[in-house]
Every structure is written in structure tokens, then in C-alpha cells.
């Protein structure tokens, strides 16, 4: 190296002492900056290991409400209970009404994904219960599996003949279970959960929401489990099981028809609002009753007066029109039913009419309980010829916009073809397609 020509002791950094100080400062900065740990934990969210049983159980109940709006709206459209007249997305008056539902669209994917997300949360809860006492563990498993089976049922209601996945795997090639296998699986999960609830002691190791008032101990929650089991059995046509399940459920012929299990809502931060509520007097609403709901109603049916409201002008879009807003939800924090006594009484009537040994007077008596509450006169004893029609009609008015009952009933009683059609080319779907993200190569 040549001799340096210039290396002056200028101001101030030419002085070797200052230069050493500068080097020391730089070294210090380097050291401090290197000391930060780049493998820091998630700055926003807790990891699964830190969640309490209550957090996870509340998560199951909270997430059960996700995308219930779409679920209720689309199944109400399919069953011609309602329209959703919103020009912002042409699907509302387009393929949801023509029945050609998009296999990769939000209306199918969002509820589908939400139910499997709830199932994931149920599985988290089951894992977290491993360390609990035997009875708490059984109670937790009974709760989780009941909620899991119910979530599966909602998805099966959508894809129906196309089946659902009952093995929860990240392998997309995991096969779909057929409709029959899926129903069997759901029934078994409910039965296993019922058995576990019997071992569940006196209380759950977590609090249930007020939506499960009266059903919030392992023993009483088992009644909710049996109510869902009765619904599943009815969907399969297994009336013997409907009957036994109902007898262990919360069915009460003399009780309030509204008694049951509900999703609950509030305006608290982080909570959500009732999925279908719209202010009935607003200048414009989107969720409107299908005009046939009013046209087909018996005069004086209180269910009509309480569930729809006539608006000053009709709303029309894309050739669909209605003047009736939906008031099933009375406010934005009104609970939304999961299953309630009115359906159980109707299920009991269904067993009486369609079970292996029909009992028409018993069935008529049960229908009349519901009719009386609706301010209608008693029906005369029904016969094999008119009992099913009467049952379907009462179910239509009692369970209006509570989760697609009319569509499901029309499908299981093979009456989809008789649902009203407003425009040429419209048709209710039988089964929604398998969602694209579940099917390899689609």
C-alpha cells in the first residue's frame, strides 16, 4: 500500500479520538439493532394455546351466527318465501332466483365456509377439554359435537344431493359423503353427543348465552340436542326416531311456542346484529316477502300480521316486485331462532300423519295448537288426502324466514315444482353445487 498523501487532523472527525468514538457509536447502533428478536409472537391475536374454555365455547356460539344472513336470505329466495331486491349485486335477482347458483360465489361459499369454521372451533374446544375433569370433558364434548352436527346439517341443507365433507382434512381430494351418509354421520354425532351429555355432570365448565336459557346445563342442553336430532330424523323420514327424540326434547304442547334455542345479538363492540332486520318504515328495504305469502294466507292469520308489514309502495327490480317488508326480526338485536317449540309440535304432528301408524286426529290436534296461537280456527280432523298439505302450510307460516324451512320441505316432500315461479326461466334449485374450493380440478 502506498503512503497516504492526505490524512489530516481536521475538524472534528479527522482526530483519531473522535474517529474511534464514531466507530464505537456505530458498533453500538449495530448491536442494538441486531438485538431485536424477529421471531416475535403475533402482535394482534392470541395463539390457540392461550384461549380459555369459555373463550372457545363463546367462539363456537359466536361464530355459529356468521353468514347466517346469506344463509337465511338465499334459502328464503329458493323457497319463494322472500326476495332480496338489491341492484348492487345482480345475483340477487339473477342466478339465485333462476336456481343456477355459482359454485364459487359468495352466496354459497360464505355460509359454507362459516359453518366449517364453526366446526373447526368445535374441534378446538374438544381439544381444549382434554385436560378437564371427566364430567366437564364429557359435557364439553357433548356441547361441541351437538354444535358441530348442527353446522354440518346447515351445509347439507344447501348442497343436499351433492353431499358434504364429513372428514375435516386439508387434502382437497377428501371425498364428499353422499347425502345419506352425511345424514347418518350427523345423526351419529348427535347421538354420541347426547350420550356424552348424560355423563356431563350438573353444569358446563363454561357459560352458555342467554339464547340457551333453560337449555344451559348438560341435562337440559340434551333436550336441545334431541330437538335437532328430531329435525334430522324427519329430514331422513325416520319417524320412529323423530318420536323418541321429541320425547326427550324440550317440546311442550302447553308451553310458549317461542321457547327454544336462539342466536343472540347486541350492539356491543365485537358483537354482531340480527342478520335480517331492516327498519320496516325505511324509505327502501331490500328483504321483502314473496307476495304469495300474503295471497295464500288464511284471513286473520296473526302470523302474517306479525311477520310482514305492508309498505306504502312496492319495491321492484329485475321483474320481481313486492310491497311487503319482513318483520320476523323486531329489532337489530332480536334473537334469531335455531330451533323452537313450534317446530317441535309440528314435527310431532308430522310423525302422527306420516309415521308408520298414522293418527290423523292426534296430528290435527297438534296442528290446532299452532293454529290457535295464530288466531285461526281449529281444522276438522284431517285425512290422508289433505293432512300433508295442511302440515306443510302450517310449517310455512310458522317457520317463515327462519332458515329455509319452506324450501327444505318442498324438497323433501318432492314439491319444488309447485313453488311459485315469477319469470320464465326461474326455478328453485334442488341442491347447490359443490363449492369450487372443495373439488379438485373444478
Amino acid at each position, binding site marked *: *500500500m502506498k*503512503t*497516504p*498523501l*492526505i*490524512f489530516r*487532523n481536521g475538524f472534528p472527525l*479527522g482526530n483519531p479520538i473522535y474517529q*474511534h468514538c464514531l*466507530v464505537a457509536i*456505530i*458498533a453500538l*447502533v*449495530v448491536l442494538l439493532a441486531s438485538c431485536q428478536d*424477529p421471531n*416475535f*409472537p*403475533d*402482535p*394482534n*391475536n*392470541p395463539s*390457540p394455546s392461550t*384461549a380459555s374454555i369459555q*373463550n*372457545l365455547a363463546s*367462539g363456537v*356460539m*359466536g*361464530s355459529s351466527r356468521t353468514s347466517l344472513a346469506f344463509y337465511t336470505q338465499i334459502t328464503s329466495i329458493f323457497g319463494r318465501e322472500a326476495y332480496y*331486491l*338489491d*341492484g348492487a349485486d*345482480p345475483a340477487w335477482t339473477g342466478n339465485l332466483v*333462476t336456481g*343456477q347458483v355459482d359454485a*364459487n*360465489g359468495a352466496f354459497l361459499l360464505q355460509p359454507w365456509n362459516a359453518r366449517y*369454521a*364453526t366446526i373447526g372451533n368445535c374441534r*378446538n374446544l374438544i381439544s381444549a377439554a382434554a385436560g378437564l375433569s371427566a364430567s366437564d370433558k364429557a359435557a364439553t364434548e357433548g356441547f361441541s359435537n351437538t354444535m358441530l352436527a348442527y353446522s354440518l346439517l346447515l351445509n347439507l341443507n344447501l348442497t343436499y344431493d351433492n353431499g358434504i*365433507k364429513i372428514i375435516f*382434512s386439508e387434502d*382437497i381430494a377428501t371425498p364428499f359423503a353422499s347425502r345419506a351418509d352425511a345424514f347418518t354421520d350427523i345423526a351419529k354425532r348427535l347421538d354420541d353427543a347426547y350420550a356424552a351429555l348424560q355423563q356431563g355432570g350438573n353444569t358446563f365448565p363454561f*357459560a352458555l348465552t342467554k339464547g340457551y336459557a333453560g337449555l344451559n346445563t348438560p341435562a337440559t342442553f340434551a333436550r336441545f340436542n334431541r330437538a335437532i336430532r328430531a329435525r334430522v330424523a324427519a329430514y331422513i323420514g325416520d319417524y320412529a326416531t323423530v318420536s323418541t327424540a321429541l320425547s326427550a326434547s324440550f317440546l311442550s304442547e302447553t308451553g310458549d311456542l317461542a321457547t327454544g334455542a336462539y342466536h343472540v345479538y347486541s*350492539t*356491543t*363492540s*365485537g358483537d354482531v346484529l340480527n342478520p335480517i332486520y331492516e*327498519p320496516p318504515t325505511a*324509505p*327502501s*328495504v*331490500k328483504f321483502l316477502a314473496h307476495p304469495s305469502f300474503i295471497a295464500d294466507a288464511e284471513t286473520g292469520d296473526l302470523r302474517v300480521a306479525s311477520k310482514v308489514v305492508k309498505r306504502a309502495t*312496492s319495491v*321492484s327490480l329485475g321483474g320481481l316486485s313486492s310491497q311487503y317488508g319482513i318483520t320476523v326480526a323486531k329489532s337489530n338485536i332480536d334473537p334469531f331462532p335455531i330451533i323452537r317449540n313450534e317446530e317441535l309440535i309440528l314435527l310431532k304432528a308430522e310423525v302422527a300423519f306420516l309415521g308408520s301408524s298414522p293418527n290423523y286426529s292426534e296430528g290435527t290436534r297438534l296442528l290446532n295448537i299452532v293454529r290457535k296461537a295464530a288466531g285461526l280456527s281449529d281444522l276438522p280432523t284431517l285425512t290422508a288426502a289433505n293432512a300433508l298439505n295442511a302440515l306443510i302450510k302450517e310449517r310455512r307460516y310458522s317457520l317463515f324466514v327462519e332458515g329455509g324451512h319452506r324450501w327444505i320441505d318442498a324438497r323433501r316432500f318432492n314439491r319444488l315444482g309447485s313453488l311459485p315461479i315469477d319469470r320464465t326461466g326461474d326455478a328453485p334449485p334442488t341442491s347447490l353445487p359443490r363449492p*369450487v*374450493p372443495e373439488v*379438485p*380440478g373444478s
Partner: protein
Amino acid sequence: MSKWRLSVALTTVFLCFIGAFAPIFAQDLTVSGSVLDDRGKAIAGVSIKAKGVQAGGFSDKKGLWRVSIPNSKAATLVFSYIGFKPFELKVTESKSDIAIRMEEDVLKTAEIVVTGLATGIARTSLPNAIASVSASELLAAPASTMDQALAGKFAGVNISQNTGAPGGGISVTLRGISSIIGRSQPLYVVDGLIVNNDAVQSGIDGITKSTGVGSSRPQGQPSNRIADLNPNDIEDIQVLKGASAAALYGAKASNGVIIVTTKKGRANTTEIDFTQQIGASSVLKTIGSRVFTSEAEAKSFAGDLGVTLWRKNNGQFFDLEKELYGNTGLITESSLSVRGGSDKTQFFVGGLAHNETGIIKGTGYSKYSLRSNINQEISENVRFEAGLNVIRSESDRGVTGNDNTGLTLGVALSQTPSFVDLRPVNGVYPANTINGNTSNPIETRDKFKNNETIYRFIASSKLFWDIFKIEGQSLTFVAQGGADYFTQRNKVISPANTQFEQGQSQPGQAINAESGNINSNLYLNLLHVLETENQLSFKTTLGYQFENTYRNETVITTRGLIPGQDNINRGSSIEGYQFITKQIDKGFFFQEEVDIKNLLFLTAGVRGDASSVNGDGNQYYLFPKGAASLRLSQLDFWKDISSTISEFKLRAAYGQTGNYAVPTARFTSLTSLNSVIDGNVGLVNQAQKGNALLRPERTGELEFGFDSYWLEGRLRLNASYYTQTVTDLVLQRQLPPSSGYTSQYDNVGTMQKQGFEIELGLNPVRTESVNWNFNVNFHKYDAVLTELKVPAFYTGGFSLAYGQYRVEQGISPLAMYGLDKDASGKRIQIGSEIPNFQIGVNSSLTIARSFNFRFNVDWKNGGSVINLAKLLYDANGLSPDYQASIDRLSLLSKGTNTKFVDDGSYVKLREVALDYTFDRAALSGFLGGIFRSLRLGVSGRNLIMLTPYWGYDPEVSNFGNLSVGRSVDVLGFPSARSYYFTLAFGL
């Protein structure tokens, strides 16, 4: 351990050099003279540096200079000044009255282009195709944001706006797509500091319900923060387009790097420049609406309500689109700059006040910026530069774009028939209920507020310390660092007294969002230069870098707000959201550059990067680079043709860069979002599963090309071919929802991309009085996913019925699919976002050194757009081409989307400007000759757009800046054209 060892090593290196050399003394050499330009005018502030020794200075106001070189018998002085070719003067004895003539560098051959974190070389030796633009080329016509001004100026640089809203929202892609899900935008480096270009969401999605607050695919179309820079402060922009050039920025550079240098002070002169712009803007293109010809038609459209409204308005056509988008925007911009200084200290101060109103009443953008740059020579071997920029920007962006509530102007417009008059009568806005409408868009325009306010501080500094400098050798320590801090406040107010809000369950909504963002970085570099007597030069750079990013966002949504109030505690319910983004990055860098006799230039380097975004934040990933350029025209055999082709260089470069997934990608966490129930916090799985094994994606690029200058510089022809392979491609792969998760970031693919760029520069007329420059640039590329380890999936858009992108092995990553299937039932491609080619044309004609005419044309040929604007109009029965819309819808119902995936070609006259400049001589009799220059001009931006596209502008992105899924049009803010009048003077 590794981080400690490296620090110790760095420290040791410093210590070795310090104190190792002792000074000796000899005779001084003193030279002086003057420096003039090619027209014989004195140039002030020319930098003069002696090669290999600490000596130099600047020319003064009269162009006079004097340099003393201590302890020396001979020296080479280098004179340099921006825009001029450097001049070298060899001196062997003390001398005075040396007259230096500097030549203007019209073709930028002598421009110094960045090659390392602390190094650069002259363009003639550059081994990459690095584009650059100077201040005058950048702002041919005024631009409210810097990125807007870049459109059409370079080959391979695509500038596309996401929305026409004032204040931007602009995507910059360099050489096309280079990632599927990773960051899509280039890295912006301003004076050595990486500045934030994020787009922070306002939370407006929570009101339009296009998606929820905090969604991973937001649709609020905010502006991206590079918009905050004042374009008038910029001296020069260099664009490192591909990985081979950008490799020195490592794991964040796969989208390229844009290096911005702001104006610096000048020694021995004080220049004051003031520019005033006044302009106007209007909508560029409208859609129109179906014309109803009879009451019967109105009746068949909307029944009795149709008849009522038809009669009410006497069947007149009411142009709601003009009412909403027909405002004439007013633009004013004042900018003032002062630059000056002494031999030791130079400063630049730039101020800006920009105000504009938009083509929608109530919208607008304002920006106030103050920048000061100081260069200080602390001692003969220590220099310091510091820049501070303080910015306030504010935009009122209105409510446009996608929506699931019927609120946005575009959606309401697409739903409202033309026989309805929605104008307020005596202050009362008629309810708009026809055709499923939930809002009166005129009322929404007048009452809805969507305001974004930014306060930003950008501080950057550089320290140059010549640790030693001897004949032919020097060692310099360069520290660069700084911080970029901004707060963003969004206020979205949807007052209760509107038709729209009356339909909400808690009428009256307000969003108050605040975010604080800080980016800080520090680069420490050691640069060793060795120049031998036989014209060999070696530059060795060793560097280490830290960068931290931290953002805290809070969004508070209030509902049930009482009228006239917008405080969060004046509502009946409050929804809170908070999100923290944290990222820690480290990197080291080594580079060797060898220049052999100005003939062959070789460079090799490696960069290692570690980041908290990866599965293991301490793991360094290496990104190598290598490049070579050969100036054939320096060889003997070239002499025969050097009169035709004066300069010819072959170049080849290879480099690797990376790209990261989002900072949340590695976490598997629970969330309480929407899961608080009955007073308890519910914790649920996030839809995204974490990946602890995530690596950065890696882009390797090989680039070949040549640069040539013909006919005495009358013609410049540059061409580059590049091929890129992106491995470890990060994808948000889809998990079957039945697993409980819907996605996971993973390294699962390989993408192949190639393209070429041609730049042709012509100087067909160059006389004393007329100078005409004409440049054309061309870019074409293609990309294909060559490997995908996960099942193919659809992404972007909304659903197949509306058109989506597909991620599948063997096809383009920007291929679009829909319902269309072939005979075998397999879905077929119906579009691609990749254009066939893109051409930019720039021309500048100067007559008599005072009259100047410039224009810039940008032509994009091909590239599809998923046109949901048309679908909305069609589905609502209100397309202006109503008959055609029936056919389109009928095709859609039969399972074909092709009518809603449209050709997005365009030709745009981006800039046109005409101005006249009076120089000092012409102004000598005016006001005592105080003016240095005076310029008057008229100009326009986006005056003409030719496009077959059905809609406002094929340049659109409903989802903002993202790699895959950009070209989706859901009736966003329409684009505008603008005109300006300019008055500028210099003192």
C-alpha cells in the same frame, strides 16, 4: 451468534484503517480559471474535485473557480454539473486563467446511474437497462402525484391508476407481474431512505359492506402514500426495473426499485424559482344511460312507480351521470424553491401548495409540502447531507366503487332510470326507491363525507467519511438512514338524515380511523476504490442494513349517530378495530465492481436478507448478482464505423431478488372478530392458517441488451431482453373450507416470464434555433406458471359468474376465467390482463431556445378487464346500449361471460404542453432585470383517450394494488382530464 460476529467484524474493519496512516507534507499546487457552457455563458456551482486527493471546490456566480491541491505535483480535476458531460483537466503546475467549456449532455451518456448502495457509474458503462428521468422530463405537464407523472416515459414501466379519485391510488409495475400474492409495488427509495408506499384503508368498506373492516381484500381504494411526495422537489428518478439491477436491494426488490433523488443546493449562487399553475378538470369519458321513449316502456320497466315517475318528470331525460360527475374541478398549485449555498454548505428549500377539486362535487385533494435539503462539508474528509420533508395532504374521495348496500354513486347511478329526477326540491331530496334503489345519489354526494388527512415527516441523512484517500485508492464509510413517519386520519360520515341511512338498523354511521406508521432504516457501507495507473478500477462495497416497520391502525365505527354529530360517543353503538403491523428486517451486502479501461465493466455481488415475515426471522437468504458490459466502440476495429455508430455497448446481467408475504403469514392465531357474544369474548380460528416454514419468494433475472448511439448522437437505440424465473412463489393457497381454514401462505410455485424492451431516441433536428427530440419506447412480455404444487384455484374478482383469475400450472398467472366451458366441460380462458404490447411516445420540440412543445402518448394494446360496471348496468336494465345488453345477459344466463371480460386497450395523450421562456437577456429591461427567467405555458393531462372499452377507463382496479386480481371494474371514481395554465419565474 451470527449477528454478533458480523458486528464485531465490521468494527474490526474500521479499527484497522484508523490510525494506520500518518500524514506527510509536500508542495501545494494551485490552479484557477473560469467555467462556461457551450454557449459561452458562465456556470455557477460547478463541482470541482481532484482525483485521488482531498481537494476541490465550486465555481462562483461568475463561473470563476480556484482549487488548491496540497502536497502534490500533479493532479486531475473533474468538473461536474447536472445535465453536462463531466470535464477532466490534468494539471502539472500551478496555473491561472484556465477556461473550461462544458458540453451539455443531451443524450445522458455521462449520467451517473446507481449500481450499488453507495456506488454508481456513467450510463455508457452501465450493464443494466436502468431508465431515468430528470426534473424537466418528469413534469412536462403538471401532475398532482409523482407516480402519475411517470406514465408512458419508460419501456417496461406500466403506470395504471386504480381510481380517478383526486389524490391518486396508482399502481406501478415494472416489467409486468412478478408475484402472485406478494407485494406488487416497487420499492421507493428517496435520498437513500426506503419510504412507505402503503395504502392504508379508511374502513369505508364497513359502510358500503363491499367487505368488512380489516378484510384482506379491501375495496376502499385509498391512495398509496408515495402520492405525498412533491413532484417539484425531484431532481431525478432512476428505475431499476428487473431483478438484475435491483438485486442490491435484495429480498424486497422483486418488483423493482424506484430511486428518487431530490434537488440539492448549489454553491455560490442563489436561485429562487416560483411556479403558479391554474387548471381545470372534467370527466374524461361517460357511460350514458338507457333512453326511455314512452310511458309504456317506463311501465314495463318499473310498473306503476315507473308510470308515476315518468309523468312527474314529463318523460324527460335527466342526465344523472352529468349531475354526479359533471363538476368542473379547479386546480391551483403554487411552488417555490430556493437553492443556493457556499463552498461548504449548500441548501435547497422547496415548498408546495396544491389544491384541487374533483369532478364530483365535494371531492378534492390538497397537499402542502415543505422540504429542506442541506449538504455540509464538515471537514475535508467528512460530508453530511440531511433532508427533511414535512407534508400535509388531505383528500375527499367521495363514495364510489363496489358496494353491497346500494350506497355508492356508481351503483346507484347504474340502478336509476333516466326518467327520474332526483334533484332536491326546497332542500328535500326525493327518495329513490325505483328499481331496488336504497339511496338518492345526489343526496349521498351532498351529505356523505369520506376524508383522509395525512401528516407526514420524512427525514433522511447521509454521512460520507473518507477514512483515507491516497493516490489511486480510497476508503469511504457511508452511512445512510432516516425515518418516515406519518399519521393518517380517516373520517367517513354517513349522516342519519339520508334515505340510505334510514334503511340501516341504526341510522347514522361514522368511521374514525387513525393510524400511525413508522419506517426507519439504516445502511452502513464501506466503500473501497482502487484505481490503477493502467486504467483499471475496482470498487468494493460492504454494507449492512436494518429496517423496521411499525404501524398501529385503529378504526372506530359508530352507528346510531345523532344528526349533525360525528363524535364517536354520540352514537348508540361503537365497534372497534385495531391492527398492528410489525416487521423487522436485516440485510448485508457485498459487491465488487471492476472497470477495465472504460471498455469492460464487471460486477458481482451478494446480498443476504433476514426478515420477521419469514418463518424463521433469523435465517438469512442470499441473493447473488453479476453483470458485465463491453463497450465495443472502444475497440480498435470499431474505428471504421464510429462515424456511424459512435457508441455501442453489449451488456448482460443476472441477479436475484425476493419478495415477502404479508407480515401475518406465519401466525396461526385466534380472533374475536364478530365473535363477542352475550358479554363474552369468543375466540375463533382465523380463516388463514399460519406457516412457520415460509421463505421469501425469489426472482432470478437474466437480462441481455445493447445500447447504441448513432449518427453523432442523432439516434439512440437500446434494446433489452429479459427472462425471469420466480421460484418459491408465495401463494395464498386455498385450503378446502371443510378443514376449518380457507387459506395459507406457502411457497408453492414457479413462474417464468420473459419480455423485451426497445427504446429509440431520435434527434432529427438539432440546429442553433431548433431542437427536436423524439423518443419511442416499447415493451412486451409474457408470463406462465410453470409449476404449482397445490391444486389450481380461482382468485380475484367475486365469482365465476362475474369473471375471476385462475392460478393453475401451465397458464398465465393473469388469465381470466368465467362460466365458459369447452365441449368436454373444462373451463376455458376468456381473457388475460397481460397486454399484447405497450408503447410510449415522447416528443419535445424547442424553437429559438424559448418556445417549447412537448407531448407524451401512452398506448396499451390488449389486456382484459373484468367489466362489472357493464354487468351492473345491464342487469339493472339501464345500459345505454339497451338492446345489446339484453343479448349480453342472455349469453350470461346460458353460461358465457365473454361479454363481460373486455378489451382494455387504450391510447392516451397523457401530457401535452406548450410554453414560452424568456431568458435573462430578454428580461434585462423588465423591472430592473431582476428576473433570471420567465415562462408562460399551457398544458394538459389525459386530454384524449381512445379506447373500445365500455366504461369510464380501462385503467382501473376495484381491489387497489395487488399482483393478481387488479383489472376488475366496479364503477369506481371516473377518470378526469385536466388543463393548466402556468406562470413561472426565476430570480
